[in-house]
């Protein structure tokens, strides 16, 4: 076939691609009108909600099943990774089939809220949770609290050597002994909090110090805790409930593990309290089924489940933390408002520039 013979073909191929593009633009508008229509229809209860869960199935499935049983509302769940789910929601925009986003950390909720995809939550829902643990514009609310800690191996780190402050970890005695997960949302929130509390310069020094001190990089917190328990790592910066998760997987008591939690004292930024939380997609803003679901998450039953089964901190009044876990008020954690942790972009740039990722 000659070049000239190919021309009509090429033209039709390009035309096809172009048509694809035009359809894409056209349907975006169509999508918006359609979404408005669905939102109205949704106001009536259809006894079904679709949840995008960035939290793992093994942790939240029992709660969703209990809700389904108690309310008679069918829960369709899509499980995935919090970050990938946030990317998917951003890509889906106003046509998302999701009603609710259940996320592992406040940062992911903030990223979706920033795209204007969440509906405002009612005041009485928000008021169940202290103001530090919810969005100031009322677009998401915390469900459970999680405290940053240092997990350490009891054979390798004597109790007397435990640091008073997370900043001590850049000192020579900790060289090569600290595991971190810099791509993890809770690590980033902790670094952002450090910037808010101690300034960018000190935070940059801290990151550079970690790098220079040969900090050990891991994908996630559970790997750090597993490595601390096995002795591959002496210590690592994680969230408090991972040692409990490991104990559960190994079928032992948490006190039988080599890995222990160390909570930094004196309001040190190393024990930042972060949350997992929930946001309602715009289309489901006045869906009563969804409202019932959010109420359930912030009710006594679900909060007790999270306290006792996932060892996270309940955020509503009247439900206590798991036995054996120090109470949130006794920990002397730093007074940081999660709403002040919105400048993630700068944190990311600093982490990238430090060479830790």
């Amino acid at each position, binding site marked *: 076939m000659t070049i000239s013979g190919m021309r009509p073909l090429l033209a039709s191929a390009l035309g096809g691609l172009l048509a694809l593009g035009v359809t894409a633009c056209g349907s975006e508008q169509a999508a918006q009108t359609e979404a408005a229509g669905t939102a109205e229809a949704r106001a009536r209860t259809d006894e079904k909600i679709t949840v995008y869960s960035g939290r793992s199935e093994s942790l939240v499935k029992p709660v969703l099943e209990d809700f389904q049983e108690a309310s008679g509302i069918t829960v369709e769940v*899509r499980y995935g990774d919090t970050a990938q789910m946030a990317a998917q929601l951003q890509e889906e925009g106003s046509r998302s089939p999701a009603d609710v986003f259940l996320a592992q950390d406040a940062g992911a909720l903030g990223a979706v809220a920033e795209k204007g995809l969440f509906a405002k939550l009612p005041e009485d829902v928000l008021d169940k949770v202290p103001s530090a643990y919810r969005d100031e514009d009322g677009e998401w609310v915390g469900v459970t609290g999680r405290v940053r800690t240092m997990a350490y191996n009891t054979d390798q780190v004597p109790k007397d050597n435990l640091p008073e402050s997370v900043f001590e970890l850049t000192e020579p005695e900790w060289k090569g002994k600290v595991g971190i997960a810099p791509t993890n949302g809770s690590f980033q929130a902790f670094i952002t909090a450090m910037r808010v509390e101690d300034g960018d310069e000190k935070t940059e020094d801290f990151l550079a110090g970690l790098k220079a001190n040969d900090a050990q990089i891991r994908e996630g917190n559970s790997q750090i805790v597993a490595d601390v328990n096995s002795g591959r790592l002496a210590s690592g910066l994680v969230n408090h409930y991972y040692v409990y998760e490991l104990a559960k*997987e190994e079928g032992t008591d948490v006190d039988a593990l080599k890995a222990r939690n160390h909570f930094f004292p004196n309001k040190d930024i190393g024990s930042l309290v972060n949350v997992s939380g929930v946001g309602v997609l715009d289309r489901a803003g006045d869906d009563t089924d969804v409202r019932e679901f959010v109420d359930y998450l912030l009710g006594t039953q679900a909060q007790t489940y999270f306290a006792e089964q996932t060892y996270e901190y309940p955020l509503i009044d009247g439900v206590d933390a798991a036995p054996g876990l120090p109470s949130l008020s006794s920990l002397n954690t730093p007074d940081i408002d999660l709403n002040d942790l919105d400048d993630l972009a700068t944190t990311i740039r600093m982490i990238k520039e430090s060479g830790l990722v």
Partner: protein
Amino acid sequence: MPRPALACGASLAVGVALIPLAYLGIRAGEAGWDRITEELLTERTGALIGRSLALAAVVTSACTVLGVAAAFLVTRTDLPARRLFGVLAALPLAIPSYVAAFAWVSAVQDFEGFWAAALVLALVSYPYVYLPVAAALVGVDPAQEEVALSLGRGQWRTTVGVTLRQVRPAVAAGALLVALYVLSDFGAVSILRVNVLTRAVFTLINLGFDRTGALVLATALVALTILVLLAEQFSRRRAARYARLGGGAPRPPTRLRLGRWRGPAVLGLAAVIGAALGVPAVSLVRWFGEGVSRPGSLGELADAAGNSLWVSLLGTALTLLLALPVGLLSARVPGLLAVALDRLAYLSHALPGLVIGLSLVFFGINVAYPLYQSVWLLALAYAALFLPLAVAAVHGAAAQAPPVLEDVARSLGRRRAYVLRTVTLPLAAPGIGAGAALVFLTCMKELPATLLLRPTGMDTLATGLWKHTSVAAYAAAAPYAALLVLIAAVPTWWLSARTGVLTRTGG
């Protein structure tokens, strides 16, 4: 099939493969030049590109050596237990890279980094070279070798200079698949902590949920793909004639006597296969024993297996349907258009599944909304990802079916469509079947795109495995991994069988 219809069908297929590229273009355009240069023109990106290329080069070289050596040993020598080795050597293809990497990490202390990833990737992907080369070696006419021997060339010089040179197209095709596979792999590099481009793309999605930055970085992978494709194209230029001339049936080739090399050859091959299959097997057994996280109920496991089979079959059917016109066109109407369409089909093949997934989310939301979160869109994603595997198989099969038979049918007054159905496809069917088997088992192993595109509430074996390993529940993950490998082993076994290494007389 009339040629314009063939060309239209091929263009449609390539259109599907180009959806991810169009999506990357749109998103990169939105990001703007400042963002693109800020992300791409950094020392860090340079290092990532260098490391990705180095990994692809090391793994491809290793796979070429391992694949060719294994294929030669089982088809052309008096290796003991030749047929057993012939099947075992193909089986690592059934093991997903993330399962292999997990297995090695839990078996060997401090197993991580560039060379660890290179080892794992080479062990799971050398069958991409082994399978086509074994098939080619079985099919090669021994006449040329005999001529070389009769002219006084030694046995080894003949082997290297004549025999291996004849199977060069098969080696190049396999090496291309390996190189593109390494560029797109995420599982092994993430578990073994090698910072290459795919891992950085995922990291950026995690880092501050930065979709735009990740997609801009993914465009660098497209550039690398073009580089690899050009290199492969260049290696083809100097290709000579490989087909036999004249009439008569080819005889099965004679086998080389290994002599005192018999022992080392057996040991070497056994070591490679043992490392590739044994380490995952041992780790799986240990996962079963360790931990108290209950294996998911049998019902859930059966559901996941059923779903895996269903979406993989659907994906395979769609991929083949789209690959057929591209492969036939490039086999029957060689020319610029055919080459262009064939090469374009490869462009998305090195993109990570996450990017393919996001692009199909975009396509589903904006263009094909009724299909969104249905198995059909997932099947379309598999087609976009694995089209080249099927195209190569169709092309090879059609090229082997003598066109003269079609001409005869045509001269007897049969219409083109009828000829395609009754002559070309039956002749090419075994080859196309091999392509189908390869696409099917690759669909079974795929994870990131499946996570993004599967219907809400549906689990496959791969997503079930991911769900448990992501919370370190290895005991619960083990049955999913084992079943995944077992099911994928069936088409793999069939693939190795049809190379001819199992036949008693064929070589």
